[in-house]
Protein backbone atom coordinates (compact mmCIF):
# COMPACT_ATOMS: atom_id res chain seq x y z
CA UNK A 1 0.00 0.00 0.00
CA UNK A 2 1.33 3.42 -0.93
CA UNK A 3 2.38 5.65 1.90
CA UNK A 4 -0.22 8.12 3.13
CA UNK A 5 1.19 11.49 2.25
CA UNK A 6 -1.61 13.64 3.62
CA UNK A 7 -4.00 12.69 6.37
CA UNK A 8 -6.87 14.64 7.91
CA UNK A 9 -8.24 13.17 11.08
CA UNK A 10 -11.53 14.40 12.49
CA UNK A 11 -10.89 17.97 11.46
CA UNK A 12 -13.49 20.58 12.41
CA UNK A 13 -13.58 24.32 11.96
CA UNK A 14 -16.27 26.81 12.82
CA UNK A 15 -16.44 30.57 12.24
CA UNK A 16 -18.65 32.13 14.82
CA UNK A 17 -21.69 29.94 14.66
CA UNK A 18 -21.05 28.58 11.19
CA UNK A 19 -19.51 25.14 10.95
CA UNK A 20 -17.34 25.20 7.86
CA UNK A 21 -15.81 21.79 8.23
CA UNK A 22 -17.26 19.05 10.41
CA UNK A 23 -15.32 16.03 11.60
CA UNK A 24 -13.61 15.48 8.29
CA UNK A 25 -11.49 12.42 7.58
CA UNK A 26 -9.50 12.42 4.42
CA UNK A 27 -6.28 10.98 3.06
CA UNK A 28 -4.17 11.22 -0.03
CA UNK A 29 -1.62 8.52 -0.87
CA UNK A 30 1.72 9.21 -2.46
CA UNK A 31 1.45 9.47 -6.21
CA UNK A 32 -2.33 9.74 -6.28
CA UNK A 33 -4.49 12.31 -7.95
CA UNK A 34 -7.54 12.93 -5.79
CA UNK A 35 -10.37 15.29 -6.71
CA UNK A 36 -12.57 17.08 -4.25
CA UNK A 37 -15.99 18.02 -5.52
CA UNK A 38 -19.07 19.54 -3.98
CA UNK A 39 -21.49 22.39 -4.37
CA UNK A 40 -20.44 25.95 -3.56
CA UNK A 41 -20.02 26.56 0.12
CA UNK A 42 -19.24 22.93 0.81
CA UNK A 43 -15.99 23.81 2.46
CA UNK A 44 -13.55 22.85 -0.28
CA UNK A 45 -11.39 25.96 -0.27
CA UNK A 46 -11.62 26.00 3.52
CA UNK A 47 -10.13 22.54 3.38
CA UNK A 48 -7.20 23.86 1.39
CA UNK A 49 -6.81 26.76 3.78
CA UNK A 50 -6.69 24.33 6.67
CA UNK A 51 -4.10 22.14 5.03
CA UNK A 52 -1.85 25.08 4.15
CA UNK A 53 -2.09 26.56 7.62
CA UNK A 54 -4.06 29.68 6.86
CA UNK A 55 -6.69 28.48 9.28
CA UNK A 56 -6.11 26.33 12.31
CA UNK A 57 -8.61 23.56 12.95
CA UNK A 58 -10.65 23.70 16.13
CA UNK A 59 -10.46 19.94 16.44
CA UNK A 60 -8.63 17.12 14.77
CA UNK A 61 -5.22 16.63 13.28
CA UNK A 62 -3.59 17.15 9.90
CA UNK A 63 -0.52 15.07 9.11
CA UNK A 64 1.97 15.26 6.30
CA UNK A 65 3.96 12.08 5.87
CA UNK A 66 3.03 11.11 9.39
CA UNK A 67 4.02 14.37 11.09
CA UNK A 68 1.41 16.77 12.38
CA UNK A 69 1.41 20.18 10.71
CA UNK A 70 -1.30 21.78 12.82
CA UNK A 71 -0.20 25.09 14.30
CA UNK A 72 2.64 25.66 11.89
CA UNK A 73 2.93 28.89 9.96
CA UNK A 74 1.94 28.62 6.31
CA UNK A 75 5.46 29.20 5.09
CA UNK A 76 6.72 26.40 7.31
CA UNK A 77 4.10 24.05 5.90
CA UNK A 78 5.11 24.99 2.40
CA UNK A 79 8.70 24.17 3.19
CA UNK A 80 7.64 20.76 4.37
CA UNK A 81 6.32 20.05 0.92
CA UNK A 82 2.83 21.38 0.28
CA UNK A 83 2.12 23.98 -2.41
CA UNK A 84 -1.13 25.40 -3.70
CA UNK A 85 -2.82 27.55 -6.25
CA UNK A 86 -5.72 29.85 -5.48
CA UNK A 87 -9.28 29.83 -6.65
CA UNK A 88 -9.17 33.56 -7.35
CA UNK A 89 -5.64 33.71 -8.76
CA UNK A 90 -3.11 35.41 -6.55
CA UNK A 91 -0.14 36.14 -8.74
CA UNK A 92 2.44 38.80 -8.07
CA UNK A 93 1.11 40.92 -10.87
CA UNK A 94 3.80 43.57 -11.03
CA UNK A 95 6.67 41.12 -11.02
CA UNK A 96 7.80 39.49 -14.24
CA UNK A 97 6.68 36.02 -15.19
CA UNK A 98 10.05 34.53 -14.38
CA UNK A 99 10.35 36.42 -11.11
CA UNK A 100 6.99 35.05 -10.02
CA UNK A 101 8.38 31.56 -10.30
CA UNK A 102 11.74 32.46 -8.80
CA UNK A 103 10.14 33.90 -5.69
CA UNK A 104 8.71 30.53 -4.80
CA UNK A 105 12.19 29.11 -4.52
CA UNK A 106 12.74 31.12 -1.34
CA UNK A 107 11.83 28.27 0.93
CA UNK A 108 14.63 25.99 -0.18
CA UNK A 109 17.38 28.56 -0.64
CA UNK A 110 19.37 30.33 1.96
CA UNK A 111 21.38 33.40 0.87
CA UNK A 112 20.70 36.07 3.47
CA UNK A 113 20.69 39.85 3.21
CA UNK A 114 24.37 40.32 3.91
CA UNK A 115 25.50 37.68 1.48
CA UNK A 116 23.21 39.20 -1.11
CA UNK A 117 24.66 42.65 -0.55
CA UNK A 118 28.14 41.31 -1.04
CA UNK A 119 27.21 38.96 -3.83
CA UNK A 120 29.30 36.13 -2.50
CA UNK A 121 30.11 33.29 -4.89
CA UNK A 122 27.74 31.08 -2.93
CA UNK A 123 24.91 33.52 -3.42
CA UNK A 124 25.64 33.86 -7.10
CA UNK A 125 25.64 30.14 -7.56
CA UNK A 126 22.34 29.90 -5.78
CA UNK A 127 20.91 32.61 -8.03
CA UNK A 128 21.93 30.65 -11.09
CA UNK A 129 20.27 27.56 -9.68
CA UNK A 130 17.08 29.47 -8.95
CA UNK A 131 17.09 30.83 -12.46
CA UNK A 132 17.57 27.35 -13.90
CA UNK A 133 14.79 26.01 -11.73
CA UNK A 134 12.43 28.71 -12.93
CA UNK A 135 13.28 27.99 -16.55
CA UNK A 136 12.52 24.32 -16.03
CA UNK A 137 9.24 24.88 -14.29
CA UNK A 138 8.10 27.32 -16.94
CA UNK A 139 9.21 25.03 -19.74
CA UNK A 140 6.76 22.47 -18.45
CA UNK A 141 4.02 24.46 -20.13
CA UNK A 142 5.56 24.41 -23.57
CA UNK A 143 6.16 27.65 -25.35
CA UNK A 144 3.38 29.52 -23.67
CA UNK A 145 5.45 30.91 -20.86
CA UNK A 146 8.80 30.94 -22.61
CA UNK A 147 11.06 33.35 -24.39
CA UNK A 148 10.25 37.00 -24.19
CA UNK A 149 7.38 36.22 -21.84
CA UNK A 150 9.85 35.67 -19.03
CA UNK A 151 10.49 39.36 -18.68
CA UNK A 152 6.95 40.52 -19.16
CA UNK A 153 5.01 41.63 -16.10
CA UNK A 154 2.56 39.02 -14.97
CA UNK A 155 -0.38 41.33 -15.49
CA UNK A 156 0.21 41.21 -19.21
CA UNK A 157 -0.68 37.53 -19.37
CA UNK A 158 -4.01 36.21 -20.54
CA UNK A 159 -6.27 34.52 -18.03
CA UNK A 160 -5.37 31.00 -19.03
CA UNK A 161 -1.67 31.80 -18.95
CA UNK A 162 -2.06 33.30 -15.51
CA UNK A 163 -3.52 30.04 -14.27
CA UNK A 164 -0.62 28.17 -15.78
CA UNK A 165 1.86 30.56 -14.24
CA UNK A 166 0.33 30.04 -10.85
CA UNK A 167 0.80 26.32 -11.18
CA UNK A 168 4.38 26.84 -12.34
CA UNK A 169 5.03 29.05 -9.35
CA UNK A 170 3.61 26.46 -6.98
CA UNK A 171 5.84 23.76 -8.42
CA UNK A 172 8.90 25.92 -7.88
CA UNK A 173 8.63 25.35 -4.15
CA UNK A 174 9.63 21.74 -4.85
CA UNK A 175 6.60 20.29 -3.14
CA UNK A 176 5.59 16.71 -2.64
CA UNK A 177 1.89 17.55 -2.55
CA UNK A 178 0.26 19.98 -4.93
CA UNK A 179 -3.12 21.50 -4.11
CA UNK A 180 -4.88 22.88 -7.18
CA UNK A 181 -7.93 25.01 -6.47
CA UNK A 182 -10.21 24.97 -9.52
CA UNK A 183 -7.40 24.95 -12.09
CA UNK A 184 -9.84 24.82 -15.01
CA UNK A 185 -12.11 27.63 -13.86
CA UNK A 186 -12.99 30.01 -16.62
CA UNK A 187 -11.33 28.03 -19.38
CA UNK A 188 -12.78 27.13 -22.72
CA UNK A 189 -13.01 23.46 -23.82
CA UNK A 190 -9.64 23.48 -25.58
CA UNK A 191 -7.87 24.94 -22.58
CA UNK A 192 -9.75 22.59 -20.27
CA UNK A 193 -8.57 19.63 -22.26
CA UNK A 194 -5.05 20.95 -22.04
CA UNK A 195 -5.27 21.39 -18.29
CA UNK A 196 -6.46 17.83 -17.94
CA UNK A 197 -3.43 16.57 -19.84
CA UNK A 198 -1.24 18.88 -17.85
CA UNK A 199 -2.36 17.56 -14.50
CA UNK A 200 -1.62 14.06 -15.66
CA UNK A 201 1.78 15.21 -16.84
CA UNK A 202 2.42 16.80 -13.45
CA UNK A 203 2.06 13.42 -11.85
CA UNK A 204 3.97 11.34 -14.40
CA UNK A 205 6.81 13.73 -15.23
CA UNK A 206 6.81 15.88 -12.13
CA UNK A 207 6.19 13.17 -9.61
CA UNK A 208 3.79 15.29 -7.59
CA UNK A 209 0.90 13.99 -5.55
CA UNK A 210 -2.10 16.10 -6.43
CA UNK A 211 -5.28 17.13 -4.67
CA UNK A 212 -7.62 19.01 -6.96
CA UNK A 213 -10.77 20.99 -6.32
CA UNK A 214 -12.81 21.04 -9.49
CA UNK A 215 -16.30 21.74 -10.69
CA UNK A 216 -15.84 20.60 -14.26
CA UNK A 217 -16.74 16.92 -14.27
CA UNK A 218 -14.88 16.25 -17.51
CA UNK A 219 -11.68 17.22 -15.82
CA UNK A 220 -12.52 15.24 -12.72
CA UNK A 221 -13.31 12.20 -14.77
CA UNK A 222 -10.16 12.55 -16.82
CA UNK A 223 -7.66 12.81 -14.01
CA UNK A 224 -8.87 11.26 -10.81
CA UNK A 225 -7.77 8.09 -9.16
CA UNK A 226 -10.25 8.86 -6.44
CA UNK A 227 -12.98 11.41 -5.87
CA UNK A 228 -14.17 12.83 -2.59
CA UNK A 229 -17.46 14.69 -2.40
CA UNK A 230 -18.07 17.29 0.30
CA UNK A 231 -21.22 19.05 1.34
CA UNK A 232 -21.76 21.35 4.28
CA UNK A 233 -18.29 20.61 5.50
CA UNK A 234 -18.60 16.85 5.70
CA UNK A 235 -17.64 14.03 3.39
CA UNK A 236 -20.70 12.54 1.73
CA UNK A 237 -19.06 10.16 -0.71
CA UNK A 238 -15.70 8.74 -1.65
CA UNK A 239 -14.56 6.37 -4.34
CA UNK A 240 -13.93 6.23 -8.06
CA UNK A 241 -15.50 8.83 -10.30
CA UNK A 242 -18.34 6.55 -11.38
CA UNK A 243 -19.14 5.56 -7.83
CA UNK A 244 -19.31 9.13 -6.63
CA UNK A 245 -21.07 10.58 -9.65
CA UNK A 246 -23.92 8.12 -9.32
CA UNK A 247 -24.12 8.40 -5.55
CA UNK A 248 -27.57 9.49 -4.46
CA UNK A 249 -26.37 11.86 -1.79
CA UNK A 250 -24.05 13.61 -4.20
CA UNK A 251 -26.75 14.12 -6.79
CA UNK A 252 -29.01 15.46 -4.10
CA UNK A 253 -26.39 17.89 -2.93
CA UNK A 254 -25.81 19.26 -6.42
CA UNK A 255 -29.24 19.11 -7.95
CA UNK A 256 -31.69 18.94 -5.11
CA UNK A 257 -33.90 16.31 -3.53
CA UNK A 258 -36.33 15.62 -6.36
CA UNK A 259 -33.83 14.82 -9.07
CA UNK A 260 -32.22 12.08 -7.06
CA UNK A 261 -35.19 9.89 -7.57
CA UNK A 262 -35.49 10.43 -11.30
CA UNK A 263 -31.81 9.59 -11.94
Amino acid at each position, binding site marked *: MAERLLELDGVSLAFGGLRCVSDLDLHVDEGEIVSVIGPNGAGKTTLFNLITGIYEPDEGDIRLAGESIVGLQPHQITRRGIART*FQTLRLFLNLTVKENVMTAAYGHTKAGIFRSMLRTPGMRREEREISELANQKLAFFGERLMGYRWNQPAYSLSYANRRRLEIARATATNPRLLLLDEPAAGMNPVETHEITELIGKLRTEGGYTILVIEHDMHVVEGISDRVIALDHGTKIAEGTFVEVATNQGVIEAYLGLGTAETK
Partner: protein
Amino acid sequence: MSDRPTPSLSKHYPGESLQFFIQLSLDGLTIGSVYALVALGYTLIYGVLKLLNFAHGDVFMVGSFIGYGVLQALGGASNPVVPVWLLLVLVTLAAMAGCAVLGVVIERFAYRPLRNAPRIAPLISALGVSFFLSNSMQLEFGAQQFNYASYNLSGGALYFHGFDLDHVHIPLLRIITIGSAFALMVVLWFLVNRTRTGKAMRATSFDREAAAMLGIDIDRVIVFTFILGSALAGAAGVMFALRVPTFAAVGFTTGLKGFTAAVIGGIGSIPGAMVGGILLGCAESYTAGYWTTAWSDLVVFSILIAFMIFRPQGLFGRVDIRKV
Protein backbone atom coordinates in the same frame (compact mmCIF):
# COMPACT_ATOMS: atom_id res chain seq x y z
CA MET B 1 3.36 74.21 19.52
CA SER B 2 1.30 73.71 22.61
CA ASP B 3 -2.40 74.03 22.28
CA ARG B 4 -2.92 73.03 25.85
CA PRO B 5 -6.23 74.21 27.29
CA THR B 6 -5.70 77.37 29.27
CA PRO B 7 -6.66 77.13 32.90
CA SER B 8 -10.13 78.28 33.69
CA LEU B 9 -10.58 81.70 35.13
CA SER B 10 -11.65 80.26 38.40
CA LYS B 11 -9.07 79.43 40.97
CA HIS B 12 -8.15 75.94 41.82
CA TYR B 13 -6.14 74.73 44.74
CA PRO B 14 -3.75 71.98 43.78
CA GLY B 15 -4.15 70.57 47.21
CA GLU B 16 -7.90 70.24 46.85
CA SER B 17 -7.74 67.07 44.85
CA LEU B 18 -11.43 66.67 44.07
CA GLN B 19 -11.73 70.17 42.76
CA PHE B 20 -8.58 69.73 40.78
CA PHE B 21 -9.95 66.55 39.37
CA ILE B 22 -13.21 68.19 38.40
CA GLN B 23 -11.34 71.03 36.79
CA LEU B 24 -9.18 68.66 34.83
CA SER B 25 -12.20 66.61 33.82
CA LEU B 26 -13.89 69.75 32.59
CA ASP B 27 -10.84 70.66 30.56
CA GLY B 28 -10.70 67.14 29.22
CA LEU B 29 -14.35 67.15 28.29
CA THR B 30 -14.04 70.46 26.51
CA ILE B 31 -10.99 69.67 24.45
CA GLY B 32 -12.33 66.16 24.06
CA SER B 33 -15.44 67.48 22.38
CA VAL B 34 -13.26 69.26 19.88
CA TYR B 35 -11.27 66.10 19.24
CA ALA B 36 -14.50 64.13 18.96
CA LEU B 37 -15.86 66.42 16.26
CA VAL B 38 -12.63 66.16 14.31
CA ALA B 39 -12.56 62.42 14.85
CA LEU B 40 -16.08 62.13 13.47
CA GLY B 41 -14.97 63.72 10.25
CA TYR B 42 -12.08 61.30 9.94
CA THR B 43 -14.24 58.33 10.70
CA LEU B 44 -16.97 59.31 8.27
CA ILE B 45 -14.56 59.84 5.42
CA TYR B 46 -12.59 56.71 6.16
CA GLY B 47 -15.77 54.73 6.35
CA VAL B 48 -16.90 55.80 2.92
CA LEU B 49 -13.63 56.14 1.05
CA LYS B 50 -11.22 54.01 3.06
CA LEU B 51 -9.00 57.06 2.98
CA LEU B 52 -7.12 58.58 5.91
CA ASN B 53 -7.83 62.18 5.11
CA PHE B 54 -4.67 63.79 6.45
CA ALA B 55 -5.95 67.14 5.26
CA HIS B 56 -8.84 67.04 7.70
CA GLY B 57 -6.91 68.71 10.50
CA ASP B 58 -6.14 71.60 8.18
CA VAL B 59 -9.82 71.94 7.28
CA PHE B 60 -10.36 72.30 11.02
CA MET B 61 -7.74 75.03 11.07
CA VAL B 62 -9.35 76.86 8.16
CA GLY B 63 -12.63 76.70 10.05
CA SER B 64 -11.10 78.47 12.99
CA PHE B 65 -9.72 81.13 10.66
CA ILE B 66 -13.05 81.63 8.91
CA GLY B 67 -14.66 82.00 12.31
CA TYR B 68 -12.10 84.61 13.22
CA GLY B 69 -12.71 86.50 10.02
CA VAL B 70 -16.47 86.57 10.50
CA LEU B 71 -16.03 87.52 14.13
CA GLN B 72 -13.91 90.48 13.19
CA ALA B 73 -16.29 91.45 10.42
CA LEU B 74 -19.11 91.54 12.92
CA GLY B 75 -17.20 93.88 15.14
CA GLY B 76 -14.97 91.59 17.12
CA ALA B 77 -15.51 90.18 20.57
CA SER B 78 -15.46 93.56 22.27
CA ASN B 79 -17.98 95.40 20.12
CA PRO B 80 -20.17 93.01 18.26
CA VAL B 81 -22.89 94.54 16.12
CA VAL B 82 -25.26 91.71 16.90
CA PRO B 83 -26.26 90.08 20.17
CA VAL B 84 -23.72 87.66 21.53
CA TRP B 85 -25.76 84.54 20.97
CA LEU B 86 -26.39 85.49 17.35
CA LEU B 87 -22.71 86.27 16.97
CA LEU B 88 -21.71 82.83 18.10
CA VAL B 89 -24.28 81.18 15.89
CA LEU B 90 -23.22 83.14 12.82
CA VAL B 91 -19.56 82.53 13.41
CA THR B 92 -20.11 78.81 13.82
CA LEU B 93 -22.41 78.53 10.83
CA ALA B 94 -20.02 80.48 8.66
CA ALA B 95 -17.17 78.22 9.64
CA MET B 96 -19.24 75.13 9.02
CA ALA B 97 -20.42 76.34 5.64
CA GLY B 98 -16.97 77.49 4.57
CA CYS B 99 -15.39 74.21 5.58
CA ALA B 100 -18.11 72.25 3.87
CA VAL B 101 -17.31 74.04 0.63
CA LEU B 102 -13.62 73.49 1.17
CA GLY B 103 -14.19 69.81 1.83
CA VAL B 104 -16.22 69.40 -1.33
CA VAL B 105 -13.57 71.17 -3.38
CA ILE B 106 -10.80 69.02 -1.93
CA GLU B 107 -12.72 65.85 -2.64
CA ARG B 108 -13.57 66.94 -6.14
CA PHE B 109 -10.07 67.92 -7.19
CA ALA B 110 -7.66 65.95 -5.06
CA TYR B 111 -9.40 62.68 -4.27
CA ARG B 112 -12.02 61.94 -6.91
CA PRO B 113 -9.53 61.51 -9.77
CA LEU B 114 -7.82 58.91 -7.60
CA ARG B 115 -10.87 56.79 -6.89
CA ASN B 116 -9.44 53.82 -8.73
CA ALA B 117 -5.78 54.45 -8.13
CA PRO B 118 -3.66 52.32 -5.80
CA ARG B 119 -4.41 52.84 -2.13
CA ILE B 120 -1.34 54.91 -1.50
CA ALA B 121 -2.22 57.58 -4.09
CA PRO B 122 -5.07 59.38 -2.29
CA LEU B 123 -3.05 59.17 0.91
CA ILE B 124 -0.15 61.02 -0.66
CA SER B 125 -2.54 63.45 -2.27
CA ALA B 126 -4.06 64.08 1.16
CA LEU B 127 -0.60 64.84 2.54
CA GLY B 128 -0.11 67.24 -0.35
CA VAL B 129 -3.41 68.97 0.39
CA SER B 130 -2.44 69.25 4.05
CA PHE B 131 0.86 70.86 3.14
CA PHE B 132 -0.88 73.14 0.70
CA LEU B 133 -3.56 74.31 3.10
CA SER B 134 -1.43 74.94 6.14
CA ASN B 135 1.28 76.71 4.20
CA SER B 136 -1.20 78.75 2.18
CA MET B 137 -2.74 80.05 5.36
CA GLN B 138 0.70 80.79 6.68
CA LEU B 139 1.59 82.60 3.50
CA GLU B 140 -1.51 84.72 3.52
CA PHE B 141 -1.98 85.36 7.19
CA GLY B 142 1.39 84.81 8.69
CA ALA B 143 2.45 82.40 11.37
CA GLN B 144 1.13 84.43 14.28
CA GLN B 145 -1.71 83.55 16.58
CA PHE B 146 -5.22 84.87 16.21
CA ASN B 147 -7.19 85.33 19.35
CA TYR B 148 -10.96 85.33 19.39
CA ALA B 149 -10.67 87.15 22.70
CA SER B 150 -13.84 85.49 23.80
CA TYR B 151 -13.40 86.73 27.33
CA ASN B 152 -14.43 90.09 25.98
CA LEU B 153 -17.78 88.85 24.83
CA SER B 154 -20.47 90.79 26.69
CA GLY B 155 -17.89 91.98 29.09
CA GLY B 156 -16.82 88.55 30.17
CA ALA B 157 -20.33 87.48 31.00
CA LEU B 158 -19.84 84.17 29.31
CA TYR B 159 -17.17 83.39 31.79
CA PHE B 160 -18.76 84.73 34.90
CA HIS B 161 -22.11 83.19 34.29
CA GLY B 162 -22.38 79.51 34.63
CA PHE B 163 -22.73 77.36 37.66
CA ASP B 164 -20.56 76.18 40.43
CA LEU B 165 -19.87 72.57 41.08
CA ASP B 166 -18.28 72.05 44.47
CA HIS B 167 -16.39 75.34 44.39
CA VAL B 168 -15.33 74.81 40.78
CA HIS B 169 -16.79 77.39 38.47
CA ILE B 170 -18.06 76.06 35.17
CA PRO B 171 -18.31 78.97 32.77
CA LEU B 172 -21.26 79.33 30.47
CA LEU B 173 -19.00 79.28 27.48
CA ARG B 174 -17.79 75.82 28.34
CA ILE B 175 -21.32 74.62 28.75
CA ILE B 176 -22.27 76.06 25.38
CA THR B 177 -19.22 74.49 23.75
CA ILE B 178 -19.70 71.04 25.14
CA GLY B 179 -23.43 71.19 24.67
CA SER B 180 -23.33 72.22 21.05
CA ALA B 181 -20.68 69.65 20.27
CA PHE B 182 -22.89 67.03 21.77
CA ALA B 183 -25.91 68.35 19.88
CA LEU B 184 -24.01 68.16 16.62
CA MET B 185 -23.02 64.60 17.34
CA VAL B 186 -26.62 63.66 18.01
CA VAL B 187 -27.71 65.31 14.76
CA LEU B 188 -25.01 63.42 12.94
CA TRP B 189 -25.98 60.12 14.47
CA PHE B 190 -29.54 60.78 13.43
CA LEU B 191 -28.52 61.66 9.90
CA VAL B 192 -26.43 58.54 9.48
CA ASN B 193 -28.73 56.04 11.11
CA ARG B 194 -32.20 57.31 10.42
CA THR B 195 -32.21 58.82 6.98
CA ARG B 196 -32.01 57.30 3.54
CA THR B 197 -28.87 59.16 2.67
CA GLY B 198 -27.33 57.90 5.85
CA LYS B 199 -28.23 54.40 4.88
CA ALA B 200 -26.64 54.96 1.51
CA MET B 201 -23.52 56.14 3.30
CA ARG B 202 -23.39 53.02 5.39
CA ALA B 203 -23.94 50.83 2.34
CA THR B 204 -21.15 52.57 0.47
CA SER B 205 -18.84 52.10 3.40
CA PHE B 206 -19.38 48.37 3.34
CA ASP B 207 -18.93 47.78 -0.35
CA ARG B 208 -18.65 50.64 -2.78
CA GLU B 209 -19.08 48.64 -5.93
CA ALA B 210 -22.08 46.75 -4.70
CA ALA B 211 -23.71 49.96 -3.55
CA ALA B 212 -23.14 51.47 -6.98
CA MET B 213 -24.66 48.46 -8.63
CA LEU B 214 -27.73 48.84 -6.47
CA GLY B 215 -28.34 52.29 -7.82
CA ILE B 216 -26.75 54.39 -5.13
CA ASP B 217 -25.09 57.48 -6.56
CA ILE B 218 -21.65 57.04 -5.07
CA ASP B 219 -20.43 60.50 -6.00
CA ARG B 220 -23.28 62.17 -4.19
CA VAL B 221 -22.88 60.00 -1.14
CA ILE B 222 -19.21 60.82 -0.97
CA VAL B 223 -19.80 64.52 -1.43
CA PHE B 224 -22.43 64.40 1.29
CA THR B 225 -20.00 62.66 3.59
CA PHE B 226 -17.38 65.28 3.00
CA ILE B 227 -19.89 68.03 3.62
CA LEU B 228 -20.84 66.49 6.94
CA GLY B 229 -17.33 65.73 8.05
CA SER B 230 -15.89 69.07 7.02
CA ALA B 231 -18.75 71.03 8.57
CA LEU B 232 -18.11 69.27 11.86
CA ALA B 233 -14.45 70.14 11.56
CA GLY B 234 -15.39 73.76 10.99
CA ALA B 235 -17.54 73.80 14.10
CA ALA B 236 -14.71 72.18 16.00
CA GLY B 237 -12.40 74.91 14.78
CA VAL B 238 -14.62 77.62 16.19
CA MET B 239 -15.04 75.84 19.49
CA PHE B 240 -11.32 75.35 19.73
CA ALA B 241 -10.50 78.94 18.94
CA LEU B 242 -13.01 80.27 21.43
CA ARG B 243 -10.72 79.04 24.15
CA VAL B 244 -7.21 79.00 22.70
CA PRO B 245 -5.68 81.29 20.06
CA THR B 246 -5.45 79.65 16.67
CA PHE B 247 -2.58 79.66 14.20
CA ALA B 248 -1.78 78.21 10.80
CA ALA B 249 0.14 75.18 12.00
CA VAL B 250 -2.47 74.02 14.51
CA GLY B 251 -4.11 71.79 11.93
CA PHE B 252 -1.45 69.16 11.98
CA THR B 253 -1.30 68.45 15.70
CA THR B 254 -5.02 68.72 16.30
CA GLY B 255 -5.73 66.68 13.22
CA LEU B 256 -3.38 64.02 14.47
CA LYS B 257 -5.12 63.94 17.81
CA GLY B 258 -8.59 63.85 16.31
CA PHE B 259 -7.32 61.04 14.17
CA THR B 260 -5.93 59.25 17.22
CA ALA B 261 -9.33 59.57 18.82
CA ALA B 262 -11.00 58.07 15.78
CA VAL B 263 -8.62 55.13 15.82
CA ILE B 264 -9.03 54.52 19.54
CA GLY B 265 -12.76 54.55 19.16
CA GLY B 266 -12.62 52.35 16.15
CA ILE B 267 -12.29 53.96 12.79
CA GLY B 268 -15.59 53.71 10.95
CA SER B 269 -17.66 53.87 14.13
CA ILE B 270 -19.49 57.06 15.08
CA PRO B 271 -20.02 56.38 18.77
CA GLY B 272 -16.42 55.27 18.77
CA ALA B 273 -15.22 58.63 17.50
CA MET B 274 -17.18 60.43 20.18
CA VAL B 275 -15.96 58.21 22.99
CA GLY B 276 -12.44 58.22 21.63
CA GLY B 277 -12.40 62.00 21.51
CA ILE B 278 -13.55 62.41 25.08
CA LEU B 279 -11.15 59.75 26.29
CA LEU B 280 -8.26 61.36 24.52
CA GLY B 281 -9.10 64.80 25.78
CA CYS B 282 -9.32 63.55 29.32
CA ALA B 283 -6.10 61.53 29.02
CA GLU B 284 -4.32 64.63 27.82
CA SER B 285 -5.84 66.78 30.53
CA TYR B 286 -5.07 64.42 33.40
CA THR B 287 -1.52 63.87 32.24
CA ALA B 288 -0.93 67.58 31.87
CA GLY B 289 -2.44 68.22 35.27
CA TYR B 290 -0.96 65.41 37.32
CA TRP B 291 2.32 65.06 35.55
CA THR B 292 3.70 67.60 33.14
CA THR B 293 2.47 69.06 29.89
CA ALA B 294 5.58 67.98 28.08
CA TRP B 295 5.01 64.31 28.61
CA SER B 296 1.27 64.32 27.96
CA ASP B 297 1.93 63.99 24.27
CA LEU B 298 4.14 61.04 24.98
CA VAL B 299 1.43 59.38 27.01
CA VAL B 300 -1.12 59.97 24.30
CA PHE B 301 1.08 58.48 21.61
CA SER B 302 2.02 55.53 23.74
CA ILE B 303 -1.62 54.79 24.42
CA LEU B 304 -2.34 54.89 20.77
CA ILE B 305 0.52 52.63 19.81
CA ALA B 306 -0.53 50.17 22.47
CA PHE B 307 -4.08 50.26 21.18
CA MET B 308 -3.00 49.65 17.63
CA ILE B 309 -0.94 46.68 18.63
CA PHE B 310 -3.40 44.99 20.92
CA ARG B 311 -6.71 46.14 19.61
CA PRO B 312 -6.35 47.65 16.17
CA GLN B 313 -10.07 47.77 15.60
CA GLY B 314 -10.39 50.19 18.49
CA LEU B 315 -13.13 50.15 21.07
CA PHE B 316 -16.14 49.92 18.82
CA GLY B 317 -14.72 49.02 15.45
CA ARG B 318 -15.38 45.89 13.50
CA VAL B 319 -12.67 43.38 12.79
CA ASP B 320 -12.29 43.08 9.06
CA ILE B 321 -12.78 39.48 8.06
CA ARG B 322 -11.76 38.91 4.52
CA LYS B 323 -12.42 35.69 2.73
CA VAL B 324 -9.36 34.06 1.24
